[in-house]
């Protein structure tokens, strides 16, 4: 089969193909009533571009859906992290315990402090026991953040006790001037609770 066509049609076809290859799917060939085989090809190119636009829209919609889902999951994860990172437990009326677990950076420390202070106020707590047994990697900001927490608790009129301090953490505390902060330190959480209950005159034999 031989076909004689106007060179302008071939140029237009190539221009459209180049534009499409560059990502522009909005281009279209201007179709005319040319009763030849090239018209089938031209029509096919336009149909293909229609299909590419449709697929792109579909992909964009899917991408948007995935992003929305990812954002929702991130929000849920943050909420869960928030809940897990501030497990403030009332171990006795007026006595709160916060076992710190994992890495405590400035952002997390701020969230923990806010939650803890709210509980201190709401429960009119007299004592707060911060248990550092589970504190993992200490970033530069960890100890200052904990010391700020201790000072803030003191400003609300509650007494803060620290437990589970490891030797390396103790050294950091001293280096940061933690020794100047009036805070009682005990080895174990149970020791701190016993001490608090003794202060309250609730523990006989102490």
């Amino acid at each position: 089969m031989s076909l004689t066509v106007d060179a302008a049609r071939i140029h237009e076809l190539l221009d459209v193909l180049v534009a499409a290859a560059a990502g522009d799917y909005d281009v279209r060939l201007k179709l005319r009533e040319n009763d030849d085989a090239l018209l089938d090809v031209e029509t096919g190119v336009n149909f293909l571009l229609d299909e590419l636009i449709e697929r792109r829209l579909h992909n964009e919609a899917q991408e948007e859906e995935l992003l929305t889902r990812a954002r929702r999951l991130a929000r849920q994860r943050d909420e869960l992290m928030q809940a897990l990172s501030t497990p403030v437990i009332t171990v006795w009326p007026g006595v709160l315990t916060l076992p710190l677990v994992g890495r405590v950076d400035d952002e997390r420390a701020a969230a923990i402090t806010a939650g803890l202070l709210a509980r201190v106020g709401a429960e009119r707590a007299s004592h707060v026991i911060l248990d550092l047994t589970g504190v993992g990697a200490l970033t530069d900001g960890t100890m200052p953040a904990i010391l700020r927490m201790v000072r803030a608790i003191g400003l609300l009129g509650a007494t803060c006790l620290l437990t589970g301090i490891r030797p390396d953490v103790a050294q950091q505390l001293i280096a940061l001037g933690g020794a100047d902060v009036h805070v009682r330190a005990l080895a174990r959480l149970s020791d701190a609770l016993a001490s608090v209950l003794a202060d309250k005159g609730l523990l006989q034999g102490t």
Partner: protein
Amino acid sequence: MPFRYEERVSPKGRPYVRLHVSGELSLADAHEYAGHFRAGGRYHGMHTLSFVEKGTEYGPEARKIFLEVGQSAPHATVTSSALVRAAINLMSRFSPKTGRYRMFATEPEALAWLDDKEA
């Protein structure tokens, strides 16, 4: 309306649908067509003779519906437009060849072919 339907009887006494098509065919138009020609539709299984006017355009979404519907009975299309012919040719390439569909340039030859085709 892009579609106009008429029920007629061929010279050999076979009932058929004469369908006049024009304008831009949208998704809604394609669904309307599909409703008539799919199983359970009024014209399902009937011979069809369609006249597609010059300037008729098949929208991208509409094309997919037409492809899904397929041919439940012989269907002859008459058109004088090379553009329409190219569009239908292309759509036909996506459908399985059943020998139930053909395009013609004139009504008499289309009707003769249709009249000879068994459902």
